């Protein structure tokens, strides 16, 4: 089964490489990161100040991932099944000797690969701009070294690893919506719309802690704390960042697969 999933994922990867949306998404996030770098020339007055590189890197990557990266990942994952259904290619795929489970898992894998590609592109471009335009270094206050540069990058890497979990949850959510509708436009609209609505309502109805998308911010807040010079209590934060998106991923995967396995695509 694993071999079949890997082969299916390989096929999906070739499709990913051929799709325009992949290149458009990468171009778009690169453009946004570069624009944020240009804008930062006006906003960051002290570019030579040690630590300004971290601040730019974080603000730029946070803005682009939050505002555009998540939307692009949602669009991509919402298209994964709905596009196959609307173009009726799913019927020819499912007549092959593969199970629906294997097919569904391969879609999740390619969604995750796309998510990593988008996040990594944003981080890489933001880092390059920060390296060229701004200054990194040790965080030192009046003779006390709060963090060395290596410690900051190690901790930032951990923050971005934690970020992947809610991003994957976003991806599985898009796939779930994709299984619910045969219409591409509706799938994209519902997935993006529901995320935005919950973003607005979650504080009013106090459900923020229970939503996976809140933990995208959580990872960035940890990174922000680091750059602000606060030592981080990793254990409770790591547990929260893993537990809530993890539970959602399992629930949405089971629900999505349950719906997908019972849908008649004829």
């Amino acid at each position, binding site marked *: 089964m694993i071999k079949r999933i890997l082969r299916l994922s390989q096929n999906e990867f070739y499709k990913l490489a051929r799709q325009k949306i992949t290149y458009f998404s990468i171009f778009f996030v690169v453009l946004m990161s570069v624009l944020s770098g240009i804008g930062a020339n006006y*906003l*960051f*007055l*002290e570019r030579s100040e040690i630590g300004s590189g971290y*601040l730019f890197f*974080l*603000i*730029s990557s*946070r*803005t682009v991932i*939050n*505002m555009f990266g998540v939307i692009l990942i949602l669009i991509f994952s919402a298209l994964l099944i709905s596009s196959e259904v609307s173009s009726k290619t799913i019927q020819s795929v499912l007549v092959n000797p593969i199970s629906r489970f294997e097919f569904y898992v391969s879609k999740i894998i390619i969604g995750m690969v796309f998510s990593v590609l988008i996040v990594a592109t944003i981080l890489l471009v933001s880092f390059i701009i920060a390296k060229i335009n701004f200054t990194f270094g040790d965080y030192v*206050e*009046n*003779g*006390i070294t*709060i963090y060395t540069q290596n410690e900051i990058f190690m901790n930032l890497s951990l923050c971005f690893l934690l970020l992947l979990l809610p991003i994957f949850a976003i991806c599985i959510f898009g796939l779930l919506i994709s299984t619910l509708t045969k219409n591409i436009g509706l799938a994209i609209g519902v997935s993006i719309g529901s995320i935005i609505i919950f*973003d*607005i309502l979650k*504080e*009013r109805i106090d459900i*923020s802690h229970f939503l996976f998308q*809140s933990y995208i*911010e959580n990872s*960035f*807040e940890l990174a*922000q*704390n680091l750059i*602000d*010079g*606060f*030592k*981080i*209590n990793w254990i*409770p934060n790591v547990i929260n960042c893993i537990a809530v998106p993890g539970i959602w991923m399992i629930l949405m995967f089971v629900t999505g697969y349950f719906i997908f396995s019972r849908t008649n695509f004829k």
Partner: protein
Amino acid sequence: MQFKNLVYLVFMLMFFMRSVFGVDWKVLELSFPEEITDGIITDLDGNGLSDIIILSGIYIYTYKQSEVGFKKAPDDRIFYKQIGELIDVGDINPSFPGLEILGISEKGVKYFYFDGKHYKESPAYFINQKIERTLFRVAPILYDFAFDMNGDGLDDLLIFHDNDFYQYINKGNCFTEKSKLENAYKIEDISLNSRILQNGNHCSDNSNMAFFFNPEVLTSKLVVFQNTHFNYDIISTLNRPMNQTDFHSLTSFFDEKYQNMFFDINADNRIDKISIEIIDDFYSDFRFFRYAKYFLFLNINNKFNDNPDYFFKSTIFNNHIPFIDLENDGDLDFISIWSDASLGSKESIIQLMTNSVLKYTLRCYMNIKGLGYSETPDISMGLKIKYASLSDIGSYIPFDFSGDFNGDGNKDLCVRINPEYLLIYLMTFNEKKVNISRVFRISVPEYVDKFTSIEINNDSKSDILLTTDNKIIVYQSR
């Protein structure tokens, strides 16, 4: 039958709620026709219950508390003067019952004694001396100006005017002529090997306290005057946090970019130094508020290290000083309040624009005996504060750590989580960890500007004082 069950259920539910939330509040609301400019909560008549003294407009109002509580009307309304400044109470003349009231105005000091029924103004003790009002605002501010400076049981006066401190010694029926307290607030006067007599609200018999403020040298501090044949060593300690909820406003605090405070941080009876750097260009860090960096230098064998021993940061809200003895063990813990809002955060922007909600992280660094502060905070809480409107954001500090609501000796956290209610987190401390044990909430009127914890009914559980320009509301725990 069903109705009866429903009634039982309601009563059981009420009993359950009462047992869960534990504290029941008795509310006292006092309104004044003019703005409140000063106020004191203290026991005027020596019955063990706190009374309220308010300076509002041209009158001083006194509300005395008896076993049955406060009356709605003031016990006394004393004509004060057109422009009042500061009031204080003291035991100036022991032949009068209770405490007397003193008031400083621009023309001098007024004195009111209690004749058994009402407060009356007396020409005795009246000091007719011009006091520069402006200096009260920009230079050292002395709030507790009536206290026993020479240990004779009579309260003397220490008043700041003409850019210096002057003492007026109580001779039993009048004050002596003023005499200058030489360089009372100069940094050189602080001897690093001075011993702090007592780190608390009251000092030992031969010492007395004043509370003063000098933005140039010592900043805000509580000063203990140790009287040895009229030679005053000025040594400092901190007995309670200062925040905006004091009636007095410390307008100049945090105005200087670099300042020093001197407190006994680790309760070793030696004065430690805290250097503060105020970061005003916070916008370059994409912060919403000014913040301060605190560099702590411990006094080790009467010397400070070149590099600080500890470093902390906290957002500046009004005049909140983040050093508080949370677990009542004598040393000072640090509370950092930090706004997590960032321009790069979509969520911050959505919550700010749609709900006027701003997220703060509150971090408590406990000072553990022998170990000092830990690098990571002992408590780290994210709190989302809802303001009445976008323009109110940052206008008041929503946190208060000065109360002990369950009477266990530890400070508890009171948060104005939104304009409609306060949340109280009861905190317990042991050597290994800090627990937030229970949360309950209190509804408050939306128009209230400020809140603080006080002790008013002498039951060892803190009460809550809410203030507006011309109104005070006291929530007394029962």
